[in-house]
Each structure stands twice: as structure tokens, then as C-alpha cells.
């Protein structure tokens, strides 16, 4: 009986391990391998280049452009949804009328795929009849027809807004859960000690929400590193590479220019950056754990 149970356990675990290995471990190791080659993605023949792909990265102007854009993307994609989510949670945590409906409405975008969100915002940003420009026109600028996604100085930020719109619901829900876990006595202490609403939020509520912030930041970070589809659908990295992030750049090099070897080298660098960011994050996490347990 015991051996049969064990056999079942091994069998049941083997399947997900196999799927994980084929879909995650194997591609991860392969891209490490191909980053040292000049494979084009199709041919069986390729040569070993040693570290030449990595040396090429240093001279690639577009790579550094992508690094800058990725940094902007990550910071903005982390900060914006976190702040708006926190703001909405604080607003909707009280017994306001219709709070439930608003919570549902704000959460809905997270249920949509990035492609759908992208399409919605392409429509909003459309220069001639898009929602945004229509409002600006109605507000007294009849000739306004700014092409948000076609201008290098606004394209990346326009996508960041769309991304934040989708991600806000997630951080809002996590913060709402965090707010319910704050012991009511702590807020009552504020009431007795005479804290203003601002002091209560700034000095007590937000610090006590740190465990929730940890989760929101982790999810936002992981999601933003993965953020590719929405950029792909809205700008494709353009115009003039102005919204080209590392993930976009890697895709373009690998699948558009068929430089799979070089693309793999970029993905290795992206992997190392992600690893460093997450490493730093986990170190900070330990400090949080010491205070909040």
C-alpha cells in the first residue's frame, strides 16, 4: 500500500516536472548554449563564436537604447500601478456607496489579455477620432491631432499608461486585502491620539501595508519584465526604436533578423539583469520580514 502510494506520488509529480523541464529548463539552457553561436534559427549548421556575441552587445547602440527604455519601462510599470492601486484601495476601503461596483470595474482590465488591452488603447490614442484626442478637442483645441503612438517622445509612455491601466486592478485588490488585515486597534490608537487623516495614512496605514507592498512590487516586477505583448501590439518597439525594450530588441534580432545566436546573448543579459533585480529585492525582503514577521 505504502509503495503504491509512493509510486503514485512520483508519477503525479513527474508530469509537471516534465512539462516544466521541456517548456522552461530546456529553452533556458538552449538559449545559454546558442548565445555562444551564430545560429540563425533554421539551419542545422552553425559555428561557435565564443564570447563574440557578448562583445557585439557592447558596440550595439540599439542595445543601450533598449537598456534605457527597459529601465524607464520597469520603473514606471512598477511605480504607476502600485501608486494608483494603493490610492484606489484607500478610497474604496471605506463604506462608500457603490464601492463594490467600483472595485469590480477597476479589477476588470486584469482579466483581459494584453492584446485586447493594446487594441483598446490604440483606439483611445487614435489621432483623428480616438477618445483621448476627442476629449482634448472638446476641451477647446479643435485642431489637436497628436499621434501618441507614432511620436518617439510619447510612444513608450503611452504604452506605460495602457499597461498601468491594466495592472492597477491587481495592486488594488492586494492592497484592499492588506487593509482588512490591519488591526482596528491600531487605527483606534490614531483616533485617540488625535492623528489627522493624512497622518494616519502616511504614518500608520502605508507602513502597515508593507507586506502587501512587497507582494505588489514582486508581481509588478515580474509582470513588467515579462511585458512584451502589449509593446508588440501597440508599437512593435517603434517609432525609431523609441519603445524598444530588451525583450523587444531580443525578439527583433532573433525572429526578424534571424540572428538567433545574438538574440540569445541578449536574452542571457536580460536574464542576468532580472536575476540581479530579484536578488536585491529578496535581500530587502528579509528586512521586512524581521519587522512584520
Amino acid at each position: 500500500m505504502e509503495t503504491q502510494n509512493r509510486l503514485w506520488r512520483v508519477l503525479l509529480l513527474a508530469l509537471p516536472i516534465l512539462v516544466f523541464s521541456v517548456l522552461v529548463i530546456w529553452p533556458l539552457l538552449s538559449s545559454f548554449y546558442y548565445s555562444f553561436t551564430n545560429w540563425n534559427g533554421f539551419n542545422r549548421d552553425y559555428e561557435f563564436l565564443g564570447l563574440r556575441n557578448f562583445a557585439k552587445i557592447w558596440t550595439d547602440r540599439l542595445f543601450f537604447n533598449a537598456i534605457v527604455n527597459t529601465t524607464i519601462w520597469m520603473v514606471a510599470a512598477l511605480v504607476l500601478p502600485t501608486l494608483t492601486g494603493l490610492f484606489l484601495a484607500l478610497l474604496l476601503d471605506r463604506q462608500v456607496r457603490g464601492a463594490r461596483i467600483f472595485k469590480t470595474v477597476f479589477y476588470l482590465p486584469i482579466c483581459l489579455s494584453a492584446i485586447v488591452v493594446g487594441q483598446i488603447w490604440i483606439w483611445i490614442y487614435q489621432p483623428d477620432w480616438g477618445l483621448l484626442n476627442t476629449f482634448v478637442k472638446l476641451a477647446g483645441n479643435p485642431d489637436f491631432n497628436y499621434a501618441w503612438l507614432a511620436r518617439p517622445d510619447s510612444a513608450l509612455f503611452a504604452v506605460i499608461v495602457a499597461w498601468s491601466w491594466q495592472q492597477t486592478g491587481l495592486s488594488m485588490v492586494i492592497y484592499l486585502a492588506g487593509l482588512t488585515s490591519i488591526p482596528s486597534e491600531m487605527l483606534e490608537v490614531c483616533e485617540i491620539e488625535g492623528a489627522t487623516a493624512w497622518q494616519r495614512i502616511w504614518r500608520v496605514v502605508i507602513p502597515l501595508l508593507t507586506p502587501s507592498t512587497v507582494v505588489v512590487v514582486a508581481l509588478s516586477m515580474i509582470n513588467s519584465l515579462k511585458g512584451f505583448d502589449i509593446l508588440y501590439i501597440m508599437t512593435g518597439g517603434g517609432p525609431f526604436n523609441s519603445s524598444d525594450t530588451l525583450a523587444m530588441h531580443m525578439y527583433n534580432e532573433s525572429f526578424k533578423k534571424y540572428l538567433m545566436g545574438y538574440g540569445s546573448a541578449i536574452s542571457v543579459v536580460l536574464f542576468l539583469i532580472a536575476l540581479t533585480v530579484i536578488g536585491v529585492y529578496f535581500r530587502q525582503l528579509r528586512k521586512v520580514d524581521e519587522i512584520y514577521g
Partner: protein
Amino acid sequence: MARVELRNIHKSFGATEVIRGVDLTIGSGEFMVFVGPSGCGKSTILRLISGLESVSSGQILFDGEDMTRTAPSKRQLAMVFQSYALFPHLTVAENIGFGLSLGKTPKTEITRRVTEVAKILQLDSLLDRTPRQLSGGQRQRVAIGRSIIRNPKVFLFDEPLSNLDAALRVSMRLEIARLHRKLGDVTMIYVTHDQIEAMTLADRIVVLNGGRIEQVGTPMEVYENPANTFVAGFVGAPSMNFIRCCVDGDGVARFGPAGIRPTRPHEVSGDALLGIRPEHLALVDSGQGTFDAEIELVERLGAESLVYLRAPFLERAITVRAGGALGLSEQKLVGVQVDLTNLHVFSPSSPTLKQDP
């Protein structure tokens, strides 16, 4: 420092009335303890005094001034919670100085006052720690520190020792008593379900039941002259024994084969309940006491033993407090001697404490 008056206080949550007309005056500098079983409304009254809950009707006055609708922060009171409610992200010093730091008190003044309070509570060496690095007793001292730093007129304690283990509870109890003496005439209102805390700390005790006051008095008054069977049964551990009896025209209480005449004056005749504390019963040889009963169980507590007795005419077992080294065995028939000077006679319609049989 402040006299607290409650005038005909009612409080309902929805359709449920939890406080049903409470009138009470707590003297300036008095240590008043609210006791009662869970759900009796003791914490609710404390929260009404603090302003954290608003009354449904009635008035709350501090030194004659109507505070019924005043915000909690304007009532000049401090509250210590069962859960301590310390801020985990602040150090001990920051927690103690929290209230002062919200106002315009200069930093140097806050530091001076925090140091002063920390010294009183023996927290001086822990000022840089965070609450997680403290023991339960130290945490509660920090919570007390946070409340005394603003020199409040009224102190409210909501079961402050319930989260501590038995040994710490005893030492913290002493510390609170010492603090009350040290702070002079500060009014303290303390909620507990622990009778020992109530008896040892209180100047006066308020016994509550179902949102009403059953009795107010000094601990010994309440213990020696309980107003009804509820108070008699609730105050004192082990509980007072109750024996159903009939008081005849001569004032003799009869139950089973026994007939005794209580010496305390009372106005009950006919069906009645005799209340006898376990220490007012003595074990004697069978046939030598007021009545005989069989030993059901003996609990040996070291310094004393609790002997549970049964007899056919007793509704439930009665408890006798006896000496520690008792050579008694279960199922033995013994005589029970009743101390007639400490007998209480209650009317059977008096409010009773619900007890397990």
C-alpha cells in the same frame, strides 16, 4: 483627575441592544474595574467612554462637562488594548512618543518625555528595539508608556493582561497597581474577566450582566454582600454554593433534613436560595454537622483542597474549601458544618449566573 459620569447610557448595534440603561459615577482618581461574563457589555461601555463608539442615547460627562459627542482625541484620555496595538515599524521610543509626535511638540521635548516615561516603566534599555524584539510583558509596558506620556485625565484598560501568561500577568498586575499609586489621582477604568485582577486592583468593582449593572461596590463589599445570586455566583472562585430551601415563619431555612437560621438580616420567606461560600463550610464527622453528604471528588491544590460533595437533596454538587493535607477519600460520607453568620438568603427570582450543572 477627572470624574466620569454615565447617565442612562443605551447602546444598540442594529436591533440588538447591548447596553440597557447604565448610570454610573466614577470618582476622580478612582480605579474602577468592570467585570462580567463575555458579552455583558463591559468593553462596549469602555469604548463608549473613549468615544470610539457613540451612544444610542444617554450622556457621558467628564468633570460635569458633556463629552457625549466629543471626538476621542479631545477627551484627554488614553487607552491600552488587549492586543497592545503597537506599531511594528516604529521603535519603542517612537511608539511611546507617537501621540506627541503628531502635534507640535519639539523633538527635544519628545525625547525628554520619552526618556522620563521609559524610566518609570523600566524600558530605558529597550528604546531602540522594535516591538517584535520584545516579550509580551515589555510590549504591554510600551503600550502603557504610550498612554501615560500625554498625561491623560482618564486611563482606559481593555483586558490589558489577557494575552500574557499566568506568571507575567501577576507581575504586570502589580506594576499597574504601582503605576496607579505613582501617577497619583489619575482616573483608571479597567475591563477584565479575571476576578483576581478585579479584586486586587479595584477601588470599586462594577459587576455587569446583559448590558446592565448588577452591583457597584468595593471588592470586599461585593464579595461579602452580593446584591443577587448573579453577583454572588460570579465574584469569587470557586463560586458560591447555592442550595434551594424554604424559609418558614420563624426564619428557619429548611432543605433536606437540615434546618438552619441564618443570622444576617434578610426579607425572604417561602422558597429561597441559600448562598454559602466554600470557605464558610467545614467538614466534620458524619452525623456531627448540619447535614451529611458524600464526597464526589477532591482537588488537591497544595495549600488547600477543594472537596465536591453530593447529597440527594442538593441540585448540584457543593464545594468546600478545606485544608491542604486532607486524608479524605472519594465516596466517603462526611458531615458538613455551615457557618451561620455568613449565610446569604436570596429570592429565587433574583438574576442568576448561568452555570453548567
